């Protein structure tokens, strides 16, 4: 079964994503920030990682960079709720660091699902 790691500091977002993704038949693990996410990934790598950018502890950009180091193949989707300065910039950087896809929150339900499907195919 395809495993997806969701990293987001918002509990409601985590809960929602878990439910949406599990409904689609994915196995979901969640983490509250980058540190926890990376720990989980090291223990048991997933096929896809969906990460928020702005988080307490370890933020998203650094998390993406380290994930890329651990595994060049892991698929990464970066999602940002809009930066405190210029939201788009973060996503650009996220992409530069190796995220396959980036989204602004709120993410279109269908678009997210189709992107995930495409990436884990």
């Amino acid at each position: 079964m395809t495993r997806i790691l969701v990293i987001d500091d918002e509990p409601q977002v985590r809960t929602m994503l878990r439910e949406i993704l599990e409904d689609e038949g994915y196995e979901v693990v969640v983490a509250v920030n980058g540190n926890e996410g990376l720990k989980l990934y090291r223990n048991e790598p997933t096929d896809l990682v969906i990460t928020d950018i702005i988080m307490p502890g370890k933020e998203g950009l650094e998390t993406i960079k380290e994930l890329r180091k651990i595994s060049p193949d892991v698929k990464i989707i970066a999602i940002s709720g809009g930066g405190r300065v210029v939201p788009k910039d973060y996503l650009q950087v996220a992409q530069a660091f190796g995220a396959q896809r980036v989204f602004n929150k709120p993410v279109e339900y269908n678009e997210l699902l189709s992107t995930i499907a495409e990436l884990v195919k």
Partner: protein
Amino acid sequence: MKSHGKKKPDEDVDTLRHKVEELERWFRIQDRQIRVLERERQKFSAVVNHTDAGFLVVDSSLQVVWANEVFTKRSSTVNHFGALHGVRCNRLLCLHKDICDMCPSAQALTSGVVAHHEIRLEIEGKPHHLYATAMPIKSPEGKIDEAIIMLQDITDLEVLRRSQEALRKAHDELELRVKERTAELLKANVNLKEQIIERKRAEKELRESEGRYRSLFDGVPIGLYRTTPKGQILEANPALVQMLGYPDKETYLKLNVVDDLYVDPEDRKLWQTLIDRDGVVLDFEARVRRRDQTVIWMRDSAKVVRDDEGRVLYYEGIWEDITQRKQAEEDLRQAEEKYRTIFENAVMGIFQTTISGQYLTANPTLARTYGYESPEELMAAVKDLNHQFYVQPGRREEFIRMVDEHEAVSGFESQVYCKDGSVIWISESARAVRDISCKLIGFEGTTVDITERKRAEEEKTKLEAQLRQSQKMQAIGTLAGGIAHDFNNILWVIMGNTEMSLRKLPGDSPIRTKLQEILTASKRAQNLVKQILIFSRKEEQERKPIQIHLVVKEALKLLEATLPSTIKIRHNIDKDCGRVVADPTQIHQMVVNLCTNAYQAIGETGGLLEMSLDVLKVDSETIKSYPELQEGSYIEFTISDTGCGMDKATMERIFEPFFTTKEVGEGTGLGLATVHGFVTSLGGTIKVYSEPGKGSKFQVLLPRHDRSGSEEPMAQSNFRDLRGTERILVVDDEKQIVAIVQDMLEELGYDVTTKTSSVEALNQFSAQPDKFDLVITDQTMPEMTGIELAKQMLRIRPDIPVILATGFSKMITEENIRNSGIREYLKKPIVFHDLENVVRDVLDDKKIKRNEIFL
């Protein structure tokens, strides 16, 4: 004896006897001669050795043969030779190495004459004067082979001679002087007699009047005098003596007016000329020296007093010390000079005007301020300040009223007309001028041109307003950016859960409509956040020269499709209006925002929306309507509607962020603020004209991009033919976008095929890979992304050029896109200018590559 007598004894004896007698006689003679000679020698020797003269004998080579005692004694002091014999006489006498021309010895030796010569020598440090006499001496053979030189020291004689000479001269001079002195004395005597006569005459006269005038003379506080034509002071009163600082009259009377009093003797000469000619001199001013050498100015008035025969006896007159007055005059002159300079050169205008509005005085600066060449010209031209000067009617009355009330005004600011009719701002400060009865008769004061200051103030006010506006916007932006993150999270949770719920609910559930409502509301909230973010993202603008009519048209198409049919859109777009340097997205946004506003003003009942695009030249005349702009060429975009219009208060606030008149949900209150910020940031301006019930008109002016002066790479494209006939496949899931791109490409002459599904597009391409010269695909499509589509197509035909349209920014996509074999990318939303260039670039690049292969 016996032997002689045997032969002829008598004869022999006689002979012998005779001979003896002869010898005896000869001896006697000899003896006598020797005695004579001895006598002579003794005499000579006595002379030579007992005289003061030095003697020496030199041979023909001038070497000393003999010298007498005097010479020998003296000569040891003359030189340092111990012996004299053999020394050349010139070394002894002249101390010369060579024989001098005047050498008497040489002359005596060569010419046989007695020669004389005077020699000056220093003997024992004292100058001596010697007199040398050289006499030739002949040898027994009669040849001159020696000379005797007599040296006489005539030094004392010389001194005597000189003193005698001096004495004689002195005597002569003395005699001459005595003669002269005698003559002088005689002359003086005559003069004295004359003076005595003159004095006696004068004294006589004096005595006559003295009695009468003495007390007056001594008492008046003004200097009174009598002087002779030669300057002798006959009389002076105490006031005069005191005036000139003398202790008493006696001292004073010893002075001479010409020599001792006048600083410039020429003054006295002039005075005397005048008085001798006219008999009187009045108010003659001259400088005189006081006893302490200080100089004072006096004023002289005098008359001549003559005797019966008309000869000048004396002058009498008065001297008045006018030093103070002179000083005051000088001070006044300097002060006047100073004030004149201030008046002439003051940086402010200075005036005196009458209450009826005429100039009495004007300085050059005032004239210049109003554009006149000179104060005279100004005063001639402006005869009625009350009516021909102030722009604002009643301004002069206000000025008069204020001065009358407050005695003065300060900083009275008005707009006035200059000579050429132009208007300037001035600031007047003036005080009242009144007549004896306190009636206001005029004004005097200063004027300063404050046009620049006023302009600066206006500019400042405007800038401050702009600053406030931009600060407000910035604050909103910061706020928006700050909350956007959290807000989006919240929205996402709402939307995600709602969608999920919708999926899980059976199709006929009545709750579905409620959930749909939540979704709709959430989407509106999402749009609002987007708006705010766009609004705060100024730094993301990417300005470049764009053909504004294409962007406007693009927006227009969108609007025509979305606005209700009750609203008629009329447009007049000048395709040749040119380019502006701007972010095309924002131009697009501007048009949409303004049209949305117009539409909302018109409302559902319907009406007319007019749009125009034109060129407007802002020149020195029209700039008055747009003082915030600079002169130049602008592109004018106007949108007018037949809607409800607005009142003045609303108009003043419409560009403020969050100001809205719309119902909740109809607008964000950011649309016009965004447009305003964008337009002003480009150096343009936006104006609104409206009246309640009469619709509104928005006018936007944007600086027209000057092609010739541009160094943008775009300038090149002006010389490029951007048209083409190649076959292009356009793929985008958005029907409207596909249509717009198709229109643009067809306008350029291309053969366009469109697909709204990436799968369909791939199928068509697989079937006929050579039917297309170029593929333009959107990146974000539901079934297959643009990059994936490109990969598939390139697998089928590796040389097919693909252009990806994407919202991604340059920095990131560049690498990703190139890696996937895509040639170029277009940033969304696609604007005409980018499209025509990128398409041409890619197609031409392809050709070049093919050519290379064929070669």
